[in-house]
C-alpha cells in the first residue's frame, strides 16, 4: 500500500511545506500596501494605555520630565509613535522636557523628536535651555545611570552641544528625587537600571514605552508598583495618539499591523490544515514486536 507522501499530496502537501519566501512576499505586500494607500480601520484602546496616559496627564507646569531614549534606531521605528505622543503630552502641560540617550545609535533621535514637536513647542513658546534640553549620550552603562541618580550635576555638566547646563532649569535638579517623571522609551537598555537606581531609592515615577516582547515583563513591574504605567509597542503608541487626538505614524501603521497579524493567523491555520491533512498521515509507523 502506498502512503500519502508517495501519492503526491497536492494542495495539502503545498500547505504543509509552504516555501518561506511566499510568506515573506505576502507579508511584504500586506505591510507596504496599506502604508501607500491607507484604509482607516478602527482601533480599540487597552486599559494599560489609559493608565499610561493618566500617569503623564498628571504633570503640571514646571515639572521636570526626563525622556530616556534607551533604544537603537531599529527600536525607534516601533516606539516613535508612542514617544512622540508622550512628549507632546508633556509639552502641552508646559512641563520641562529633558532628553537623555542610552544607546549610541539614539544620538540621532533627539533632532527627530524636536522636529516632530516643533508645532506644539512653538504654540507653547518653548525655548531651548529654558524649557527643554538635549543632554545626549550620558547613559552608556549602569554606573552612569546610578551616578546621575545620586549626583546629577556630578555626571552631567553640559548638553549635547557642549554648552554648560549651569543657569538652566536643571539647576534645581540635584538627585533623582527632583524629577517629576521619567518617560522610558526602551528596548531593554538600562530599564532595570532606572528602576534599581532611580525608582527604588528615590521614588522617581517611571512610565515605560516598550517593545512587544517586553510587555509581559512591564506588566509585572506595573503590578509590583515599580512602573506607573506601560505602553506596549506600536499599537500602544497608536492608541495613545488616538486618545490625545493627535494622529501620527502609529495610527497610520495600524492598517498594516492588522493585516500582518491576520495573515500570520491565516498561515498558521493553513499550516495546521496541511499538517493534519498531509504530514501526519504520511508518517509510516513501524511496529516492533519483542518477545
Amino acid at each position, binding site marked *: 500500500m502506498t502512503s500519502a507522501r508517495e501519492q503526491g499530496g497536492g494542495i495539502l502537501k503545498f500547505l504543509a511545506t509552504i516555501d518561506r519566501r511566499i510568506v515573506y512576499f505576502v507579508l511584504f505586500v500586506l505591510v507596504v500596501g496599506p502604508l501607500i494607500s491607507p484604509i482607516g*480601520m478602527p482601533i*480599540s484602546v487597552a486599559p494599560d494605555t489609559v493608565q499610561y496616559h493618566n500617569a503623564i496627564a498628571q504633570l503640571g507646569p514646571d515639572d521636570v520630565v526626563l525622556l530616556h531614549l534607551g533604544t537603537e534606531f531599529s527600536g525607534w521605528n516601533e516606539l516613535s509613535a508612542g514617544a512622540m505622543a508622550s512628549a507632546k503630552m508633556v509639552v502641552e502641560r508646559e512641563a520641562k522636557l529633558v532628553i537623555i540617550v542610552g544607546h549610541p545609535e539614539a544620538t540621532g533621535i533627539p533632532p527627530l523628536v524636536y522636529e516632530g514637536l516643533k508645532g506644539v513647542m512653538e504654540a507653547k513658546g518653548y525655548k531651548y535651555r529654558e524649557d527643554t534640553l538635549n543632554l545626549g549620550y550620558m547613559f552608556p552603562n549602569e*554606573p552612569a545611570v546610578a551616578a546621575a541618580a545620586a549626583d546629577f550635576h556630578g555626571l552631567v555638566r553640559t548638553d549635547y552641544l557642549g554648552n554648560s547646563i549651569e543657569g538652566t532649569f536643571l539647576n534645581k535638579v540635584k538627585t533623582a528625587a527632583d524629577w517629576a517623571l521619567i518617560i522610558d522609551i526602551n528596548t531593554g537598555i538600562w530599564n532595570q537600571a532606572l528602576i534599581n537606581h532611580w525608582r527604588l531609592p528615590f521614588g522617581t515615577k517611571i512610565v515605560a514605552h516598550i517593545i512587544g516582547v517586553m510587555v509581559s*515583563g512591564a506588566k509585572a513591574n506595573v503590578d509590583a508598583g515599580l512602573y506607573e504605567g506601560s505602553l506596549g509597542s506600536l499599537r500602544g503608541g497608536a492608541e495613545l495618539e488616538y486618545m490625545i487626538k493627535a494622529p501620527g505614524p502609529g495610527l497610520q501603521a495600524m492598517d498594516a499591523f492588522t493585516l500582518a*497579524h491576520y495573515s500570520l493567523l491565516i498561515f498558521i491555520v493553513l499550516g495546521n490544515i496541511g499538517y493534519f491533512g498531509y504530514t501526519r498521515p504520511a508518517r509510516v509507523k513501524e511496529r516492533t514486536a519483542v518477545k
Partner: protein
Amino acid sequence: MSVFFKRKDIQVTIVGISFLLVFIPYFFDIPVLGAFSVKLITIASLINAFTLALAVYALMRRALNTVRKKGRGWWWAVYMVACLFLMMLFGVIGETQAPWHWVMFAIINPLSSVNYTILAFYVSSACARAFRARSIHAFLLLATGFIVLLYQAPLTGAVFPGISPVALYFTDTFAMSFSRTTTMGLTVASIVLGVRMLLGREVQFLGFPREK
C-alpha cells in the same frame, strides 16, 4: 610590581573592597563614604566607556587576520575598516555637521531598522511552519497564542469587543506570572554569580584560568 597584578588573591580583594565601598553607603548613612561611593561609581562608568573604545582593537584584529590570510571576502574586511575610520573622522569633524548626519540617516538608521524588520519576516515564517497542534500541550499553546494574536490586531477589539477580556486574562495572569518568575529566577542567579565572583570562585573575568 607585577606581582600586585598577577596574584589572584590581591585582585579578588580589590574587587571586594570596590564592592564594599559602593554597597555599604547604600544601607548606612556615612556622608564622607557616601560621597566617595558616588565618585567611585562615576569612575566605574568611565572605565566601562574606555572598554567600549577597545572595540576598535577587536574589530581591527579580526579584519587584519582575514586580510593577512587572504581569506574569503578579504576585501570586505578592508572596506569595513575603512568605514570604521571614516566614521571616526566624521566624529572628529563634529557630530552636528553634515557628514555625520548623512551617515547616521543614510546608512545606520536604515540598516538598523532593516536588521530588526527582518526578524519579523523570520518570526512569521517560523510561526507559520512551527505552530502545529501535535499534542494537547501544543494545541493549548496554539489556541492561547491565536486568541492573543487576534486581540493584538487593533481591528479585532474594535469590531469584536468580547475578545478583549479573554485575551487580557491570558496576558495579565499567565504571561505576567511567568514573566515574574523568570525575573525572580534571573535575580537569584545573578546574585549567586555575584557572590561567587566576590569569593574568588569565578575569576575568568579577571583573566585568571577557571577554578578547578
